[in-house]
């Protein structure tokens, strides 16, 4: 198996406070990986470091063998990372369709001048990207809402739209930051189905999630973070029995 992501010694320090210390991780093509841990364990910080939003203090991130540490977020996106956000960050005043079409930004090439002249190739590209965006919306069962403003969607659908938007960038790895947070049971169920579907399509996914049932159900391998450090890794079964994990979650028994 070829690993598509290799993280070595990733460390993040904020003004003396160590938010991540020496994280190592390898991700194989097509696997679904879970990152769990108590609040403040550094999970989102980890995603922010991977996607370049807050570049890491030390360490190395290799995507398909290429060192992408510390480069600008928009370039990292074009290299193959796409993510969703813990606090939904949609383009609220754009339609659902346009949100996904923004995701297609680096898959399209129309220049400013060509767009102003509305050349034939631009019109063709627009039609194609609209088609592509609709396909993605269909995949996530959002196509009925295509002309609604993203901000007007119910919460669960907003989370789903974030996934759609991320998929549009055609990522090598999809990073989902608490995709089930705030969802009701039915919505969580739907989400589980969607991730299953994405898995069948061959996507590689890293999920941060608090919902244990959810994550144990879907992930093949888990990483457990606590206080910015990785305290365990393994299959859901192994993690369930791991003493360090139990201690981190339940506290030291006296």
């Amino acid at each position, binding site marked *: 198996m070829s690993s598509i992501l290799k993280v070595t010694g990733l460390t993040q320090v*904020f003004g003396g406070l160590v938010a991540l210390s020496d994280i190592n991780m390898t991700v194989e093509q097509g696997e679904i990986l879970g990152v769990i841990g108590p609040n403040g364990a550094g999970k*989102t910080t980890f995603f*922010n470091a991977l996607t370049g*939003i*807050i570049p890491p203090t030390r360490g190395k991130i290799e995507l398909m063998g290429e060192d992408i540490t510390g480069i600008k977020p928009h370039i990292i996106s074009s290299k193959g990372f796409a993510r969703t*956000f*813990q*606090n939904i960050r949609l383009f609220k005043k754009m339609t659902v369709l346009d949100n996904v079409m923004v995701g297609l930004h680096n898959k399209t090439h129309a220049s400013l001048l060509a767009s102003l002249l509305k050349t034939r190739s631009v019109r063709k590209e627009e039609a194609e990207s609209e088609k592509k965006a609709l396909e993605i919306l269909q995949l996530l069962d959002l196509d009925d809402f295509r002309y609604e403003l993203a901000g007007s969607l119910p919460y669960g659908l907003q989370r789903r739209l974030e996934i759609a938007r991320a998929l549009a960038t055609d990522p090598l790895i999809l990073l989902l930051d608490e995709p089930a947070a705030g969802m009701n049971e039915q919505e969580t169920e739907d989400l589980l189905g969607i991730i299953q579907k994405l898995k069948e399509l061959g996507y590689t996914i890293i999920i941060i999630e608090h919902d244990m049932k959810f994550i144990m159900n879907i992930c093949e391998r888990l990483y457990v973070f606590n206080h910015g450090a990785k305290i365990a890794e393994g299959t859901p079964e192994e993690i369930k029995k791991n003493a360090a994990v139990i201690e981190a979650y339940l506290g030291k028994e006296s």
Partner: protein
Amino acid sequence: MFIQQLINGITIGCNYALVAIGFTMVFGVLRLVNLANGSIFALGAFFTLIIYTAMQGHFLLSLLCAILATAFVGVMVDRLALYRLRKKGAARVSGMITTLAIATIIDNAVIILFGSQTRPFKRPKDFGNILIGDAVVGKLQIYILLSILAIVLILSYLIYKTKLGKSMLATAQDPEAAMLMGISVNRIISLTFAISAALACFAGSMIGLYYQAIDVTLGTSIGMKTFAAAVLGGVGSIPGAFVGGIVVGVIETFVAVYLSSGLRDAIAFFILIVVLLIKPAGIFGKKVVEKV
């Protein structure tokens, strides 16, 4: 010559500092860029002038009345225009634009009532000069410096040592938590506006006395210079605003004397832009990282 210009610069700068402190306090409590601060400065100066002219004498009493009147205007600005926006949870930029509207209204009301020409601002008496080394320093300058120093000290005491000041700091830190702690946030906000306007009025009146003239455009330029001062010191920081104000005053005085008086007004903006480019958080400010 140098010493004398330095003292002139500090005299002007102290006044900028007062206005900048008012600006920074409002920003600290509300995260609001108050674009009307300069207009309130000019309005305050006009109040003092009008009341003083009407009362024929009693400068200090006129000043006191003007300060109270300006503080009232400051509170009303918040109550009538900004309070509703806050209650609706409007975007912060709406607040800033509202203060722009208020600035436009105050400036033009002043023009309509008092005219757009420069008005002479008569000193109550000839204060005379004293010699410090070979520098000729107006006694008025000394009075201005001392009174501003006193105001800043009293204000610092109020803010950092009293319960009221601590409630203010708490509100600036986290309005919701402050409210939960039983602090009446709206009262604190009104008070902040009142203090800010009173400081602007005092500085406006002092500048009027010092230059012996006042006109409405002074408000606009002082408004912008005091942003520069506040940003230089780090927006939200009171000591920062104080130092920033003095630095801007001194630099612009030197530029006017040694380079060109035409550049005098432009220099504050150059400082502002350079500071923002090099150290956006200012000298005393802290860098704020957005939570993702």
